[in-house]
Structures are given as C-alpha cells and as structure tokens.
C-alpha cells in the first residue's frame, strides 16, 4: 500500500511496547516494536531489568563463594554455570579433577540440559498456543528437580560444584533413579514429538519464521542451538571437550534452514542425545575420589583465562583475572549465551508479524537472569 501523504490515507508506523511484564514467561524483557500494519519494521530490545551486578559482587567474594552467585544467572540450568566457573578456575590453577568427578559433572550437565530444554519446550509451545505441552514438559522437569534435590538438597540453585571436584558424592541408589528417569524421558520425548512435530498448525507457525543463514549467525555471535539450527556444526562439547565429554559418544544435531522449526528439531534431538550421554556416564561411572588436590585457600597465581562450556542456551564463557594477592578474583566476567543470542532478535523479527515475535523470543531461548546478570 503506497503512502499518499496529504490525501486520504496517511500510513504511519505504530510503535508498540512489549513491556517488561509479559504473559509469556520469559522474564523482564522489553521489546519496542515499530509496526507497519502487522509487520515489524524495526525493533529495539531493552534489557537490564534484572541486572544485579553479579560481576561486581564477585570481586568482593572469595573464589568459593562465587559459586553461589553463578547459580543465579541462568537459574533454569544452574549446575551448568557452576561447572563452567569451576572448570575455569581449575584451568587457571591447573588443577586435576578426578575421573569420577568429571563423569558425575557430565551427568549433571546433561540432566540440566534436559531440564532447561523441558522448560524451553513448555514455554515455547505455550506461546504458540499449545497449552498442554507446557504441563507435560514441567512434569518431566519435576522429575529432574527431584533427582537434584536428592543429590544436593536444592531444586533450583544448586551450589553443587566445588573447585577441584564435587562437594558431595552421589547418594546410594541415585544412579539407578537416573537411569530409570532416562527410560521415562525417552518415552516422553516421543510423546512431545507426536504432539507437535508433524502438527500442521505447528509447522505453519514455525516453518520459515525467523530464518538466519549460517554466515549471519556466526557474524552476529549466535551460539548453541540457534547456531546449530542454521547449519553450523559448532558445539563446545565436541570442539573443546571439557569434563568427561571426550570419552562420551554422542552426536550433535544440526539443522538446515535456520528457521524456528529447525531450532525446535535441534533441541528435541538434543533431548535424546543427552539421555544417551547420561546413560553412558552413569553406567560407566568409575570409582575414585570426588575432589582433586586443592589447596585449602584458593589463590590462583597472577594470570587470566577464558574458558567456555556448552550450556543449554549456547556457549557459556567465563573470563577470570586473578592478581595473585587477594582471595577474591580481580575481574570476573561471564559471557552469557542468552545475551549474545538476544542480539540477533531485531534481525530475526524484521519483516515478521507481531504474533511471530513471541515465537522467536521463545525460539532463541533467553533467560533474563543470564542476559542481565
């Protein structure tokens, strides 16, 4: 529709604010949209509503206390943050983590991946309208949270890692429960697939929505399932193995088109691969100590390092600077995957309709705790 200024129709852009409070459960994110009719012309993402200054706080806490703070960033998959931080400090101090601890860390990371993807699936499906999947996915997430509660006593913020290993060994019978859970989960993933993957309405809502090519994805800094959905074979677990991933056999699902449907399929396949990894790590759990040789007072020498792990949202990196003198880090920096993935949102929603914006926010899978820290 052309604009005849001064004559009958004067089309101007509508500015709409998808405010910090949403019905869809993504956290306090604000997107200011400029619409031309139904289509988004441009948008601006405003974040910072959940900024708690974790980086600054960490400069005043000693190295072990920071593990507590890292829980609260990506609160959906808290143990992954813990593992990332501990691994970075261990890299800085060149500590050796015993094999048993590495296997358990792998199992816990993969359990967190399943838990985080359950939440993603539930909220994403609910945004697109399939309300029931939300409750089914949370039913499985409850099972995982029960497992964690048995292991470390908390359901959401675990504080379940220590520098050099783990604080607690797994309780008796926990490994059998985990294996049982794996059996249950494989059936449930098939159930989710049945409900959504070939559903005509789901396909229409997600196919071709938010397409981003591989080069654009790398340039804009996407990582994790959004990057793999665009066809780039990059997974920190394969490229730079940490914990016990070098001893695990698993595949990394890659998408082809880079649209929302492919990202959905990638994450769904990651469910299955995670179940495979958990089975391998629990069945092959070696005996041994769970903490390595760690000095009483953790004081790394002068230096800095950057270490990345694969969190469910993408590449979670920690950059730590130590000045060798104090018991606190000099600089503690988190590279949050959700923050960098969210950068791509204005590019993704350009030209799409308002109803797709919510679907795309869900497809990128942001956790505001991580974005804002």
């Amino acid at each position: 529709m052309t604009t005849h200024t001064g004559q009958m129709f004067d089309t101007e852009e509508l500015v709409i604010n998808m405010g910090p409070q949403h019905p869809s459960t993504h956290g306090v994110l604000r997107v200011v949209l400029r619409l031309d009719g139904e289509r988004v012309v441009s948008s601006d993402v405003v974040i910072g509503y959940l900024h708690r200054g974790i980086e600054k706080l960490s400069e005043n806490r000693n190295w072990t206390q920071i593990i507590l703070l890292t829980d609260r960033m990506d609160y959906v998959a808290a143990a992954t943050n813990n593992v990332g931080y501990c691994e970075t400090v261990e890299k800085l101090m060149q500590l050796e983590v015993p094999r048993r601890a590495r296997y358990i860390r792998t199992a816990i990371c993969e359990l967190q991946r399943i838990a985080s993807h359950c939440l993603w699936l539930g909220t994403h499906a609910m945004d697109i309208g399939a309300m029931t999947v939300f409750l089914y996915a949370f039913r499985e997430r409850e099972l995982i949270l029960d497992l964690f509660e048995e292991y470390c006593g908390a359901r959401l913020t675990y504080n379940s890692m220590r520098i050099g290993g783990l604080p607690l060994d797994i309780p008796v019978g926990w490994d059998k429960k985990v294996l049982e859970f794996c059996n249950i989960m494989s059936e449930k993933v098939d159930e989710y697939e049945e409900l959504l993957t070939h559903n005509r309405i789901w396909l229409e809502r997600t196919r071709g929505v938010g397409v981003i090519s591989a080069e654009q994805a790398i340039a804009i800094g996407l990582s994790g399932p959004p990057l793999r959905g665009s066809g780039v074979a990059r997974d920190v677990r394969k490229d730079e193995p940490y914990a016990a991933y070098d001893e695990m056999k698993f595949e990394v699902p890659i998408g082809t088109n880079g649209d929302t449907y492919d990202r959905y399929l990638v994450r769904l396949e990651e469910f299955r691969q995670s179940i495979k990894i958990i089975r391998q790590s629990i069945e092959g759990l070696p005996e041994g100590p769970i903490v390595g040789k760690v000095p009483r007072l953790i004081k790394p020498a002068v230096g800095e390092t950057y270490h990345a792990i694969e969190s469910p949202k993408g590449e979670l990196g920690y950059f730590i600077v130590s000045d060798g003198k104090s018991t606190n880090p000099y600089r503690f920096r988190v590279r949050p995957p959700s923050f960098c993935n969210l950068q791509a949102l204005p590019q993704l929603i350009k030209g799409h309709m308002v109803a797709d914006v919510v679907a795309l926010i869900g497809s990128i899978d942001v956790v505001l705790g991580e974005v804002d820290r």
Partner: protein
Amino acid sequence: MPGAVTQLSFYVGDWTVIVPADKLIEAGRFLRDTPETAFDFCSDVTASDWPPRAQRFDVIYCLYSTRHRHRVRLKVRAGDNEPVPSVSVIWPAANWLEREVYDLFGVNFVGHPDRRRILMPEDWQGFPQRKDYPLEGPGELLMESPLDWLRLKQAREESEIE
C-alpha cells in the same frame, strides 16, 4: 602477523596478543580474513580496570575460529577517555558486547553504531564496574532506613516545586 604487536603471551593454554588501539581494526581484520587464522566468531568483548596504571582499561576481545577451532585473545590498553575503535564493523556480534563495556566501564568506543547504555538505566551517571565505584552504589542513594526514602521523596518534591 603485522609488525604492530606489542606483546605476545601464552598462559595455561591461551594465546594473548596485545596491540595498540590504533592498530586494532587492522589486526582484527587480519585475524578474521587470513585463512590460517580465520577468527570469524567474536566470543566476548570485555574490559578490566587497573586503576594505578595510566592506561587503566584493558579491553579484551576473545576470538574463536569455527574452522580451525582455536582461540585467541586480543588485548588493547586504553586510558580514561582514549578512543578505541569499535570492532562491530568486523564482527557484528561485538555490538551489544561493546555497549556493555561502555555502560559498565565508560570506555570510549569510536564508530559504534549505537552507543547507549544497555544494562543500566539510560540516565545513570557513573560507570559501575570501575574499581573506584562503590559496591553499595552512589552514596547519596544509600537507603538504610525507611526515613531515608521519605527524606529523598521530600527533597525531590521540593526541588520540583522550585
């Protein structure tokens, strides 16, 4: 490598390259475009504040190559208001990351398409992550009792009336 490198170091498995600020864009382009290095993924842009030094900020760029799967860290030293060219022309991923460094440290990025605060409110004064910024926040807003809120509100109302 172009002959602009100030320092090269290797520690616990990471390579770090320090370049002067004016050679940053050149070095970045070189790292991205050379086939042997091919650093096409900008993982992280962050900064570190070393107050006693004249050039107090260390702006750090963590780069990763998806093809060769190796990492490198590029470091630039900058002073309080010294301009640092923005690498968002080379890696668009650096856009928000540089905004955050500007927001929290006050590093002066030149050529950035959208230099605004990202995490703090738009009209915030001060740069929180600097070492001389107090952990509890700026002093006059330190609320320790309910009466402080009341006093602040009254002060605001009085200043509005004037």
